[in-house]
């Protein structure tokens, strides 16, 4: 019974972390560039071959493409295909994200809402407007004609699922994920940039709701297992009377 107690409790703990992951997905379902994650589980087996419960292995991010939606921002970009925007924080550290809501800062750089700078582009102060092509070429319009002012490159990883998530949209390189390879968007089998569009999160609300219900019921079932084991222990303890 003590083992049954432990096994059922491990099931409750696993479903708890499952619920946390799903709740996080649901909370960020409306965040541009957000990638949902899923909890993974493994069976625990004792050396004798008999099962001793389950364990949550941790959440893994799903990099499935989110829907592209037309937006109103003047520097909105979306990646159609794999890859990440290469961003720099205040300390010059490189970060990777698929959130393409950029705005122009006073110094001409393009920055995300949390003040990360898009690498490789600076818009001159006398530019009237700028557009970005599918291949990442940034063209600015001046009083006297138009001129190319830079190229936006993307980063790709051998194993993007092993990147370290800093928040729902921003990732840090890890040795497991491999070195970032720079790619020029617009190649026929690679990613392309979409100017004036944003990538929505890849979380489906209906699916997440369904997952919550399943996780909750699984949690309850395991709690009943704990109760049954406890009850049997109580009976065993009462066997010796007087």
């Amino acid at each position, binding site marked *: *019974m003590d*083992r*049954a107690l432990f*096994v*059922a409790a*491990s*099931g409750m703990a*696993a*479903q708890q972390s*499952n619920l946390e992951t799903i709740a996080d997905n649901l909370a960020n379902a409306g965040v541009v560039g957000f990638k949902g994650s899923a*909890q*993974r*589980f*493994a*069976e625990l087996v004792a050396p004798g071959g*008999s*099962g*001793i*419960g*389950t364990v949550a*292995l941790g959440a*893994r991010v*799903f990099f*499935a493409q989110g829907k592209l939606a037309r937006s109103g921002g003047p520097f909105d970009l979306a990646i159609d295909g794999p890859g990440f925007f290469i961003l720099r924080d205040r300390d010059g550290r490189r970060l990777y994200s698929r959130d393409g809501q950029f705005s122009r800062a006073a110094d001409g750089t393009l920055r995300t809402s949390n003040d990360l700078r898009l690498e490789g582009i600076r818009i001159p102060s006398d530019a009237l407007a700028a557009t970005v092509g599918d291949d990442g070429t940034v063209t600015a319009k001046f009083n006297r004609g138009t001129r190319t002012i830079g190229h936006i490159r993307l980063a790709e990883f*051998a*194993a993007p*699922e*092993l990147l370290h998530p800093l928040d729902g949209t921003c990732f840090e390189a890890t*040795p*497991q*994920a*491999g070195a970032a390879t720079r790619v020029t968007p617009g190649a026929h*089998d690679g990613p392309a940039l979409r100017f004036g569009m944003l990538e929505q999160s890849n979380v489906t609300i209906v699916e997440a709701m369904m997952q919550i219900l*399943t*996780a909750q*019921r*699984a949690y309850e*079932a*395991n709690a*009943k*297992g704990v109760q*049954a*084991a406890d*009850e*049997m222990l109580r*009976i*065993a303890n009462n*066997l010796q*009377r007087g």
Partner: protein
Amino acid sequence: MVAARTRLEIATQNLANVSTGGFRRVEARGFLSALGVTITRQTSAQRGALRRTGRDLDLAILGEGEFRVRDAAGRISATRDGAFVRGTDGTLRDSRGRVVLGVHGALSVPSGAALDARDFGLPRESRVQTGFLEAPAVNAVAEMIDVLAAQRSFESAEKTVAAIDGTRQKAADAARIR
């Protein structure tokens, strides 16, 4: 009472793994012997339904066979959980970081490569379905009923023990009077 305890352990194990991909439920088989009821464990042959994920490295086996994986210590084990990722070195790895083995050792998958059953050394009639995972073959309702049944049978065993104990007590009292 020992048999009821084993049944409870088996049912809770199945319940705990209600979300573990590729898990196959363990069945309790009871045998009557001179010493009472003995419970043995047997892994069920029943497989879980396929669940669509859309990831290109989620693989489900249609038919017989298992994926072979090798951990860091070199131990080889078999699994039907096909939630794989591509490692830095291009090899295919499972959700616990173990290397997936093909016919000739570790499998390397270039980005966008299609995998089929022969790459994994699966039986000829089996196929591999990309973008799907095998859901655990556990029915939570059936396991719940098993938990309750085990509990009740433990209770009735306890009543029997108490009755036998009572009879012996009376016999001992009778012997004392004489």
